[in-house]
């Protein structure tokens, strides 16, 4: 009924410089204020409904004092049951309208909140999907998640307050007219005193906010400590340290308690000053009203009405006050949000000129060594064959794998999940610096992405190929690939496009019998977030099976079995080439169990391919190669449990 969740159509293109489609929305990320206005603008119908029902809901507040006063004057005092019933009837009608409007108002209020909040969450999800690995190089994951959970909520609250402020202004105007038409003198007292009361209470709210901020900070630190204890509980119970960290927690808990009591005390001050100020207003009105009555200018009923107005008028002022605070909080959140959303893909649209897609030089095809070529390292791979990259430095091999898949290299300027300094000025400065740093990375990315990539697939440079095509044809596993929560079937076949035989074959190829046996419900077994509950080796094999099942034309596997035991590794290495028959496979590893299976092995050293051949040839003829792959045999006896394959 209220249109939530909203449909979101932004960020559909994975390259920059493409005109938005007619139905695509373009968030206005030029400034925080513009972004908030854009957000509110996207839900104007809901804001309008909210305004309407808010006015209706306020009706009894505005009219009830009037009707009540009349009922007392014309009905009770005059002993006219007819008039009593007339005014009471009107009172009942306003109450019914108001109560109905109240029920709808709650809906409209929540709707405005949720539409804005859900829109933010959807925008974040789309932005991350649009930019992929590019965004993780610029914005830390923690920040993206806090935008989706915390800032989305704040922006939702801002949108909903915008609607409430509109209705508060309306009701205020109506009551002002009513009050002045009854008694100018009392009316003026009400009109002047009500804002003074609200504004008078405002200074107390500032320390409240400060204290609340301090409490929130301390308390989120406390929650962090609890999570930390749980995450490291295995160590705390296994090795010890319960007292140290239990005491640390208790100490922080007491600091939170102190901050909490401080907030509570300030709130007590706010509450009691509200009692005091509205009490003073009541006294003032009584005194003025009684004088007016004695002078015969005011009736009892009218005085009762004025009591009602005075109480009612406090509401719109509180709303305005709240609205201003929400807007400020909204601006801060909007600033953080556009810090994520304003990033655009670094990739330019692929050159549509077909001549650039023509393979240069000799035609390439099955068996030809120049199917996949990297000019920077001199690495080549033949179509349909299994090539392994060996390097003494696993990082170097991983970098080459990234190049082959057109992934930007990892950044020099590592972004940290840094905390904002205290004080709004310092925080603003901090945010500005952060934005500059990110803009620098973004500019460098775009330069990098525009230039010829230096890797050709069937003679075509990857820059001249649409990014989607690159991703479809060349799949690169990364060093720590993720398993996503879902069923076992979804973990292997996330798009649901494969049949059971194919999936079984993939699972068999990665020798995952133990994974299958440990899961009680077969394909429907639930895999927890990030594959929690599975061992590192099991996760690694599921990820490998997922890659195999998707059957990319070129698969680049980085250390595919680094967490798997030798028995299992031997089985996988023996089965994989058969599974990938006819497709191009590249792996980085130094394990002889794998190397024996390769059609070709390439030795990478100092950024260049220095030797190529089969494993047995290289082992026999190349001392440098032998040194890398047999390192495990000859470890000095003082290093008995060096478990890494590629240790020093």
């Amino acid at each position: 009924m209220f249109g939530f969740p909203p449909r979101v159509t932004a960020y559909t293109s994975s390259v920059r410089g493409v005109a938005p489609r007619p139905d695509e929305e373009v968030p206005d990320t030029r400034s925080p204020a513009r972004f908030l206005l854009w957000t509110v603008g996207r839900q104007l119908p809901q804001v309008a409904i909210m305004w309407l029902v808010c006015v209706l809901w306020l009706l009894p507040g505005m009219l009830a004092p009037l009707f009540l006063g009349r009922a007392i004057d014309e009905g009770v005092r005059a002993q006219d049951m007819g008039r009593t019933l007339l005014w009471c009837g009107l009172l009942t009608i306003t109450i019914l309208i108001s109560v109905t409007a109240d029920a709808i108002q709650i809906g409209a209020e929540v709707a405005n909140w949720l539409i804005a909040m859900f829109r933010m969450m959807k925008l974040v999800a789309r932005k991350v999907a649009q930019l992929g690995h590019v965004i993780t190089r610029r914005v830390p994951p923690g920040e993206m998640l806090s935008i989706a959970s915390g800032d989305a909520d704040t922006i939702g609250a801002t949108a909903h307050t915008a609607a409430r402020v509109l209705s508060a202004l309306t009701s205020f105007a109506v009551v002002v007219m009513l009050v002045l038409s009854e008694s100018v003198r009392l009316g003026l007292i009400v009109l002047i005193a009500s804002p003074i009361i609200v504004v008078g209470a405002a200074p107390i709210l500032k320390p409240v906010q400060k204290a609340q901020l301090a409490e929130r900070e301390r308390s989120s630190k406390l929650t962090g400590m609890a999570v930390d204890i749980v995450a490291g509980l295995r160590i705390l119970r296994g090795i010890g340290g319960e007292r140290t960290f239990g005491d640390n927690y208790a100490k922080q808990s007491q600091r939170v308690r102190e901050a909490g009591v401080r907030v509570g005390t300030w709130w007590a001050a706010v509450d009691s000053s509200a009692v005091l100020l509205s009490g003073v207003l009541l006294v003032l009105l009584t005194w003025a009203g009684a004088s007016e009555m004695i002078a015969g200018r005011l009736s009892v009923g009218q005085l009762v009405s004025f009591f009602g107005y005075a109480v009612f008028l406090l509401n719109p002022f509180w709303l305005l006050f709240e609205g201003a605070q929400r807007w400020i909080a909204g601006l801060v959140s909007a600033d953080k949000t556009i810090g994520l959303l304003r990033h655009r893909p670094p990739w330019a649209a692929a050159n549509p000129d077909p001549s650039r897609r023509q393979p240069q030089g000799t035609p390439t095809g099955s068996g030809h060594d120049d199917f996949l070529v990297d000019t920077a390292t001199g690495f080549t791979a033949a179509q349909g064959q299994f090539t392994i990259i060996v390097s003494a430095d696993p990082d170097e091999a991983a970098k080459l794998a990234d190049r082959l898949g057109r992934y930007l290299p990892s950044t020099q300027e590592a972004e940290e999940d840094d905390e904002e300094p205290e004080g709004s000025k310092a925080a603003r400065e901090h945010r500005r610096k952060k934005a500059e740093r990110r803009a620098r990375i973004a500019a460098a990315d775009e330069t990098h992405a525009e230039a010829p990539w230096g890797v050709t697939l069937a003679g075509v440079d990857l820059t001249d190929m649409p990014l989607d095509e690159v991703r479809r044809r060349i799949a690169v596993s990364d060093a720590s690939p993720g398993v996503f929560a879902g069923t076992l079937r979804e973990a292997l076949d996330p798009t649901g496009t494969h049949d059971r035989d194919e999936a079984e074959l993939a699972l068999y190829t990665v020798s995952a019998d133990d994974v299958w046996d440990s899961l009680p419900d077969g394909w429907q077994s639930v895999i927890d977030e990030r594959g929690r509950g599975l061992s590192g080796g099991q996760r690694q094999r599921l990820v490998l099976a997922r890659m195999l099942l998707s059957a990319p034309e070129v698969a680049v596997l980085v250390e595919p079995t680094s967490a798997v035991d030798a028995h299992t590794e031997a089985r996988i290495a023996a089965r994989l080439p058969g599974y990938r028959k006819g497709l191009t496979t590249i792996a980085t590893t130094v394990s002889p169990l794998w190397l024996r299976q390769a059609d070709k092995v390439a030795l990478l050293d100092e950024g260049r391919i220095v030797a190529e051949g089969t494993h047995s040839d290289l082992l026999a003829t190349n001392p440098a190669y032998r040194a890398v792959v047999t390192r495990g045999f000859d470890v000095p006896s003082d290093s008995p449990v060096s478990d890494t394959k590629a240790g020093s």
Partner: protein
Amino acid sequence: MAEMFPGSASTWDGAPRTSQVDSRLTSPIAGSLLARLREFVSRHRMRRAHADEVYTRSRNPKRGLPVADAPAVYAFTGRMLKSRKGLIAAMLIANGGAAVAGLIAPLLLSALIDDLTSGETEAAMLAQVNRVVLIVLIITIAQAVLQLVARRASAVLGHGMLAEAREDVIRWVLKLPLSRVESASTGDLVTRVTRDVGSMAGAVRWALPRFVITGMTLLFTMVALFVNSWLLALPLLFTGILLWIAMRRYLRWGPKGYIAEGHTYSRINSTLTETVEGARTVEAIRLGDTRVALTDDDIEAAAQAETYTLSLRSELFFITGLAHRLPLVFAVIIGTIGYGADLVTLGQITAATLYLQQLVNPIEMMIMVVNQLQVGVASTSRLIGISSVPPDRESDPDAAPVDGHLVAKDLRFAYREGHDVLHDVSLDLRPGERLAMVGPSGGGKSTLGRLLAGINGPREGVVEVGGVDVMRLPLERLRTEVALVTQEHHVFVGTIRDNIVLAREDSTDDAAVWRALSTVAAAEWVHKLPDGIDTMIGSSNYSLTPAQAQQIALARLVIADPHTLVLDEATSLIDPTTARHVEGAMNALLTGRTVVAIAHRLHTAHDADRIAVVEDGRIVELGSHADLMAAAGEYARLWQAWRS
């Protein structure tokens, strides 16, 4: 069809991933007003059924820790309240005073109105006005002061109780049995120490004091209404009946609705977390659209849950709105009759209308308070549940191993009843030897390692160290005998010293910490830090490189100084680029200790004194590298394959 894995065919679901939300709930509503209303009601029922299902499931988790019952929660709360009697008394007295003061002003004002309509002289009336106004002003000030005292007392009470409760929770967590900690996923516990502590906080620090305060205000206002005029108080009956009906309905469905709603939000969070943290994977396997669709579906589910609780709230506020606003109308009608019959005065009518309007806020507050208390009780019962996990061992404080000789005799072990994963395994570790365990995944290597380290007790058989059953050793003692080292190297939020002294936290001085750091070759970089071993690390503090984190983890073991170490994939996740540093530290740690290494790499096995090949829950081969090569079994075959 043939299947390669048992049960594959029957669990393979041909349909692709389906939405969590029933499509009947999201299709547009059309037709006449009546048809729409009927459709809305039927959808409301579907949402209710769903919320109840989620609630029931959350009460009886398949995995995870137990949940306590409501009486345990009341007993726990009662204990905390008992130790704070003085504070509670102060709060009640101050609050009672404020409530009474709040009720006197309307009485005086209405009396004044009666005076004004009684036809005295103008001067006398003005004097009377001034007198009453002055009294009311003083009373208002008194009320404000009393309120300040009451609220402050309630803040002290609420936050004090909350701090005590959450510290208790962490104490319980830190006492969880070792075997439970090792096997359980952390998800449930994380939810408990974050979300459940959060809702307990809401209840304890806000709702509980408010319940008392608002309850008193309500009671006093009603008494005042009756004292003012019992006739004009009659509309309260109407209020009472309606409120009772509305609250009963709301409290029956509401909490379940909110718990279901909370679940939808944690689902949004976990899906988004996975997308963000796995952004590269999402891009690499072209899952972008799928992940976006998943988030959209999560949000749709949250929207449905919100719609449901929204309907509940709308209904509640509609009825309570009538309940506390219509009595005003009744009071005026009764007043008209009563005034004519000389049963009530104008002043009493005025006072009654004022009191009735004063009831509105406390009643609304009471509804919110009761709601919050319900959620709080549910969360607190989950927290107290942590303390009800039974211990996994009965330790004997006098147990004293005579030496560091570790022997396993005829071990059998099952995680699930009837599914033994170890069959009659015996192993005699020679002190100081290096034993490598190899074998395929799922063969039982890790389980055997856990039994040797005293994490789990065997179903049959015994693991003894120096002649004493490891399961009878107090935990503090066990840690200094045997340690299990895994690939995990968690850095805690705290100082470097805090992170290292774990096993002997009460008896380790700074010199020992520095010695441990030197042993693992970490003293140099720690020296360079501004605060040395007092530098805060973990989370957002000084961030360590992976190699430094591993050195810290190893320094912990140097302090613990056990004679036997069980290494489970301990180094398989060492970042290869840092391996040089850490391997040296590792070797320093291992020198002079008995080591059982569960190994992935064959060269590890090759260098060990003895190798145990574990397959299908049995040790199938045991001996030195040369022995096993001579035996020409499974190990020899694998070694040949690797070597050639």
